[in-house]
C-alpha cells in the first residue's frame, strides 16, 4: 500500500502510540503520522496538512471527538477522508452519533491490531 498520511487525535500520548503501532502492524508500516492532543489541535493540523485517514478518540477534554468531527465536516477540512472513531463508549447510540457526525468506522477500546486492520484497511481501499 502506498504511503498513507494519518492523523491520530487523542488526549493520551500513550493511546496515540498504541494506535500508531496497531496501524503499522496492520500493514501501514510506511505511513506518515501526525498527532494531535485535542480536537482543536487536530483542526489546526488539518488546515496545514493533507491526510488520507483520521482516527480520533471521542472522550477528550475541551473539544470531544464528535465535535471535532462535526467541525472537520462543517469546515470541509478533509473532504472524502475516512474518519474512524476509537473510544471506550460502545452503545448503539454512541455509534449512531459518530456516524451522524460523519464517521465511517468505529473501534471500541480495548482493541487488538487485528480489529484495527479489519476496520481501517477496507476504508482505505474504498477511498
Amino acid at each position, binding site marked *: 500500500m502506498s504511503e498513507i498520511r494519518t492523523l491520530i487525535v487523542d488526549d*493520551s500520548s500513550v493511546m496515540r502510540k498504541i494506535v500508531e503501532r496497531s496501524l503499522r502492524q496492520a500493514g501501514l508500516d510506511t505511513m506518515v503520522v501526525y498527532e494531535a492532543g485535542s480536537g482543536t489541535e487536530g483542526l489546526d493540523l488539518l488546515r496545514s496538512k493533507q491526510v488520507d485517514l483520521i482516527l480520533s478518540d471521542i472522550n477528550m477534554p475541551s473539544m470531544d471527538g*464528535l465535535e471535532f468531527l462535526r467541525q472537520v465536516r462543517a469546515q470541509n477540512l478533509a473532504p472524502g477522508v475516512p474518519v474512524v472513531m476509537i*473510544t*471506550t463508549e460502545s452503545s448503539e*447510540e454512541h455509534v449512531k452519533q459518530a456516524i451522524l457526525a460523519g464517521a465511517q468506522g468505529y473501534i471500541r477500546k480495548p482493541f487488538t491490531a487485528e480489529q484495527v486492520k479489519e476496520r481501517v484497511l477496507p476504508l482505505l481501499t474504498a477511498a
Partner: protein
Amino acid sequence: MLNGVRNAAIARKQAGGNDGMERKMAVSLKESVQLVSDPRHLDGSVEEVFQMMLGVACARFPGPVPQEEESVTAVVGFGGLLSGACVFRSGSSTAIKIAALMTGMEFAEVDDTVKDAIGEIGNMLAGAWKGKVPDLSANCGLSVPAVITGSNYNLHVQAPEFQLHHFYRFDESSFEVTIVCDGLQ
C-alpha cells in the same frame, strides 16, 4: 475527589447533545442492582483490557496488594443512570510495568507517560465495565481520567449503593480495582 470526577462525568453526559436523552432517562436500573453489581462483569472487564492491550493473562486473587512506598491511582467518574467511579490502584512498580507493556518503552520512575497509561487503563476498565450492561452502556457517561500519585492515602466513600473491590495479578504484579456506585436511577 470523587465528587469532582463524578460531576465531570455528569456534565459530559449532559453536554453530549444526546437527542434521545429524555426517552432514555425513562430507563431505570433501580431494579437491576444485582445485574449491575455482578462481580463477574468487573472480572471479565479486567481480563479483557489486560489481554487485549497488554497481551497478558490477568486473574483475580484474594489480595491484598503488597504495599509500596508510592502508589498510582486512576479515577474515572460515572454520570447518568449510575453515578460513582471506577478506581484503579497499584504500586509504582506495577504501574511502570503496565506502561512498559502498553508502549514498549522502559521507565525508571512514574513519569507523565506512566500516569497517562494508567489513566487510559482506568478509562478502558470503566468503559468495558459499563459496556457489560446495555442500559448502562447507553445511559452512563464517563469523565476523563484523573490520576493521583503519592503514598499513604485511602479511598473512602460514604454509604455507597454498592461497591466492588477486587484484587488482580498478572506475572508477579498485582493491583486493585474498585467500582463505587453512590447513586442508581
